[in-house]
């Protein structure tokens, strides 16, 4: 990747570790899919772990049927349910076909949570939802506890023998991170992840999107989506990455909560970059 392009992509968007380190104690918990392998061979059984935590370090979340709205895998042109055992981690099992990149999608039913006002605002800042703080201020609600209902929307990509256009299509989650190209493609332009964030299947502008490297969670980046919901990261290292974003909207008047939050994540394994064109194999 040309270094200038990388800098152009990274510089305006990155919130560094130092910036995040200045924030208050963690309140929010990210949610993501952690399969037993990101590059299964055809026919192998893959266990699908769900994780809740921070900075790509999480605790196992056992399967809870009543909390699952959708848990599926799309591979080689068809969609099947991800089966599993109640109260057991790993939460799901699937048999990889291994042909093209598989997309695992998980959507939870909502769950309520209430936080004291100060903690609620800490967490809103942490996940880049400052507009909600401003909105609460305008409505005179800053002293009120935060009553919300949260929904989790996680996706993971399993590398196949070839890439899949399905990766670039929304799977229909309420809040969703959709790559523009298949990031598991070893022939893709070097380590630039471009994508969109979609809320209710429409591009969402101004959403904070963060990326974490599994092998070294201190390596992480953040950017905001543009008017078209687009974002881009220059991911500097091959490995397993978590890309995540949180959106919040006012709950309907029929809801017992004031807010609804939507937690989207995407996990995948970025392959080692192909040598740039013209590079010679030293052998």
């Amino acid at each position, binding site marked *: 990747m040309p270094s200038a392009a990388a800098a152009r992509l990274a510089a305006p968007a990155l919130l560094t570790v130092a910036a995040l380190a200045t924030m208050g104690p963690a309140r929010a918990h990210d949610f993501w899919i952690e399969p037993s392998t990101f590059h299964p061979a055809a026919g*192998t059984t893959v266990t699908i772990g769900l994780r809740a935590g921070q900075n790509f370090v999480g605790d196992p979340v056992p399967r809870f049927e009543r909390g699952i709205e959708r848990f599926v895998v799309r591979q080689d042109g068809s969609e099947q349910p991800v089966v599993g055992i109640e109260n057991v981690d790993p939460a799901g*099992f699937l048999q990889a076909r291994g042909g093209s990149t598989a997309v695992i999608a998980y959507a939870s039913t909502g769950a309520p949570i209430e936080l004291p006002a100060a903690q609620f605002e800490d967490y809103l800042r942490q996940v880049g939802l400052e507009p909600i703080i401003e909105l609460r201020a305008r409505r005179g609600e800053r002293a009120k506890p935060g009553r919300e209902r949260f929904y989790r929307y996680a996706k993971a990509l399993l590398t196949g023998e070839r890439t899949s256009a399905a990766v670039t299509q929304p799977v229909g989650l309420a809040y969703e991170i959709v790559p523009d190209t298949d990031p598991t493609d070893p022939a893709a332009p070097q380590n630039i992840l471009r994508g969109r964030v979609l809320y209710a299947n429409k591009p969402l502008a101004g959403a904070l999107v963060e990326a974490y490297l599994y092998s070294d969670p201190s390596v992480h980046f953040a950017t905001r989506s543009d008017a078209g919901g687009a974002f881009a990261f220059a991911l500097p290292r091959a490995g397993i990455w978590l890309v995540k974003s949180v959106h919040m909207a006012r709950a309907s008047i029929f809801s017992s909560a004031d807010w609804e939050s939507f937690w989207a994540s995407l996990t995948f394994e970025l392959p080692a970059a192909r040598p740039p064109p013209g590079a010679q194999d030293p052998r």
Partner: protein
Amino acid sequence: MKKFAIWIFPVLVLSLALFALAPRAIRASDHADPINLKEPESNITDLFFYPKGDQMILILDVRRALLAPEPYNLAPFEYVVHMDLTTPVTYGNDSERARYGGTVANPERIHDDVTISLRLNNDATLKEKSIKGLKNPDAIRIFVGVRDDPFIFPRFFKKNTIAMVMSIPMSSFPDGQQDWILWGSTYKSGKQVDHVGRSNRTQQARFDSLNTLPPSQHVPEIMRLLKKWNDRFTFVNSFKEPMLKAAAGFIQYLLQIRKYDVVADVMIYTTRHPAGFPNGRFLTDDVAAQTCATGDCILQDLSFIEGGWPRATVNDKPFLEDWPYLAEPWPEAPEPPPSTKSIWPYIIAFVIVDLIVGWLIVEGLRRLVLWGIRRRQRAVA
């Protein structure tokens, strides 16, 4: 009596529900489990595979709890041991190595490079053999006959089995062969009717439907069972009534697929590690205890329930040092006849009583209403 009356209705309803929920597994049968096959000679009871000198010893036993004299019903069946010598096996997953001896990374590719097919006469002698995929098949020594059941399990102490013992020279396998995947099957009229891989797997009620499938189809079938029994467990467990919680526990213990179950049922043997269960199986391996140590305890539970103290950890007859290794058979004796009692008369009686009681209630209410109407009409008049 009153207490009995209070309990009989829910117990009957629960029994009927569980009967309806139960898979063919429980009604059909398998191996060394307590359920009878209609044709017990098709029922595989044991598979052993271990090295001895420059030979590999292979033992396939059928016909559990045998004491009856010949003739047996062996002629309709073909007994086959399959070996896959080429599908890769890995040993990096500790839990799978402890449970299964290793990991077959791609179970869909399991196939047989070697088949050893035997047909027996009804007097338990060898009728014909067919050996494919091995070098110098004539060097393979075969014993067929009635022997002591070698399974270390009280229910089968002092019982016999029909044994097929083979001694296969290592030189019959490809040079440098290190890994074996093997399983046994029984066929009737070309159709698979029973299967054995690793000990104490298809014996479990939750795996019964694997018995008619080749190992390459096991994982999709286990996935199907996993969904089916998880759905049923979560449904039944979602109710607050203790009786349904108990039913959910029954499903969980006996029928629900475990997270470590999603592997094909085969025996793995490798020369990379010391022999002995689950790396192949010696005659002396106490698999009831060994499989309990990794999750499946029903055989160990039963051996405590039915056996004495301390629990037997060796066979009831010493194995032989020399060919054919299995102990001499126990004397012939009459076998207890299978039960001829059926649950259906009780179910029919229950339904009839239920209908009569229902009719009496409706008729009583009808008469009560009519009496009320007539009384009102008389009052108006």
